[in-house]
């Protein structure tokens, strides 16, 4: 299957409202941390991959120019890869293929977003097609609510049960974020607080929704040779998949969500995973909305269709459960869009290398990371393992 590739270092900024730093400085913060973690210098890097969401988020076009120095990319080949919210996974995949192609030994991959500088929902609305659907767009919450409602209706999930399970997801993610020094939202919330929070788009409430964060993440991909030389504990890339559906919302069935299902299926095939619930030790699912996280559990085969709320309420995905999900606090507590998918990958790598600190899942060897993009259009998955 070609050359093996591993992650040997990761770096993240302190995520949150970072008006103390201009955008390039924020990017450099993550790059510096990743170099240190991998024990390498800029001279060791053969190529750099950058991705953000749409540049319209920050009002600067083609940011690989603006960040040339911050990425340490001057004099190096650069690739800019972007696929909306799934950017973080897509740039990780690009880093993988660059090394796997044999054209590089070490590739630095960087994702970033500085959402406090733009208008998140207004920007999101420009993703909707301007020919037919933009008129009716209500940013990200509108779409995710439509999808969640359709899903609950399809599988006959009572509103109360859905509400209860979503609230538990919010509570546990917020709890987990307390263990993550990089997380944006770090506060404990109770079930009642979630259930009584301000309605954003019914039934989705404020605490069901991710924040808009500033942040960057950098990940170092290395060939087998470079892994040996680094002496770092590697997180091997075991499987990856990326799938997209039609542009127009409504053409594909979002209650069973083929792109999410098939992206995971592809990654499982490559990693030789048959029973993800049993075989995976931890999952970092891209969960900007509590309800949506449950749809992902079903698409990824963690539980049968329509049964995610039951599994959630049983504690399957809690820390200490059968398959802990988002021990980092997830997207729900930190969402710098272009970085988010890569943060998931970095967190998965930290888990399988035993470097996740307070948020470590004991003995984790195989981890799934994920990101979603567009108007529910794209899904990307990467599986990392402590062994090849």
């Amino acid at each position, binding site marked *: 299957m070609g050359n093996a590739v591993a992650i040997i270092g990761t770096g993240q900024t302190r995520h949150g409202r*970072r*008006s*103390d*730093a*201009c*955008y390039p*400085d924020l990017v*450099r913060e993550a790059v510096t941390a990743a170099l240190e973690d991998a024990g390498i210098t*800029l001279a060791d890097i053969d190529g750099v991959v950058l991705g953000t969401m749409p540049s*319209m988020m*920050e*009002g600067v076009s083609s940011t690989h120019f603006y960040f040339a*120095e*911050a990425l*340490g990319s*001057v004099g190096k080949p650069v690739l800019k890869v972007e696929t909306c919210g799934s950017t973080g996974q897509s740039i990780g995949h690009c880093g993988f293929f660059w090394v796997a192609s044999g054209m590089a030994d070490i590739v630095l991959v960087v994702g970033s977003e*500085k959402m*406090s*500088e*733009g*208008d998140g929902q*207004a*920007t999101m609305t*420009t993703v909707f097609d*301007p*020919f037919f659907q933009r008129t009716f767009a209500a940013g990200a919450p509108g779409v995710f609510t439509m999808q969640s409602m359709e899903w609950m209706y399809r599988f006959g999930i009572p509103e109360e049960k859905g509400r209860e399970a979503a609230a538990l997801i919010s509570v546990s993610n917020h709890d987990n974020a307390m263990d993550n020094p990089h997380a944006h939202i770090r506060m404990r919330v109770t079930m009642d607080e979630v259930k009584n929070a301000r309605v954003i788009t019914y039934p989705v409430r404020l605490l069901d929704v991710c924040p808009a964060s500033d942040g960057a993440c950098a990940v170092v991909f290395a060939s087998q040779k470079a892994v040996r030389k680094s002496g770092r504990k590697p997180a091997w890339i075991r499987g990856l998949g990326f799938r997209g559906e039609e542009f127009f919302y409504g053409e594909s069935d979002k209650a069973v969500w083929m792109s999410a299902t098939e992206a995971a299926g592809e990654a499982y095939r490559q990693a030789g995973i048959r029973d993800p619930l049993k075989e995976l030790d931890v999952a970092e699912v891209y969960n900007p909305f509590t309800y949506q996280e449950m749809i992902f559990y079903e698409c990824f085969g963690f539980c049968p269709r329509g049964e995610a709320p039951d599994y959630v309420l049983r504690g399957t995905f809690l820390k200490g459960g059968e398959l802990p999900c988002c021990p980092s606090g997830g997207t729900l507590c930190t969402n710098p869009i272009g970085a988010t998918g890569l943060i998931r990958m970095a967190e998965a790598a930290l888990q399988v290398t035993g470097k996740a600190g307070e948020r470590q899942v004991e003995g984790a060897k195989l981890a799934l990371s994920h990101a979603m993009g567009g108007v529910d259009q794209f899904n990307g998955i990467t599986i990392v393992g402590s062994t090849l």
Partner: protein
Amino acid sequence: MAKEYRTIRNDVALPYQWALGKTWTRFFDGLKEERILGTKCKDCGKVYVPARSFCPTCFTDTTEWVDVPPRGTLVTWTLVNASWYGQVKEPPYIVALIRLEGTDCDFHHYVDGFDITDEKERKRKLKTGAKVKAVWSPAKNADIRDIAWFAPVK
């Protein structure tokens, strides 16, 4: 942009609030006081203007601030006659690269202060290596236009 086939107009208008960060905040505050501030890299010794939080070559943090004189020499220039949507300045105007004294990079700004539409004047005043000096705007907003332009000296 009148077209003979059917189109939809799609204006993208978005508001922004861009963070300057510590280094550029100080740089622009300097302009307000009619000071041009650069930073010096402790590794390679180069002085950069505008000030940088890290050396673009060495990737190390810059800590030393330097006052740069508001004068330098002309490196290259162009007279902009074209106009486009959302242009920063009414054409014609001159955009130039200026090497400020004591710095190791070129500074982007406008050149003005004489009849720039007169070709002979341009030929006389805008020779490469010609001395120029900053002309300050009377009203200052702590931004790059606090320097109104650079004018040829003499």
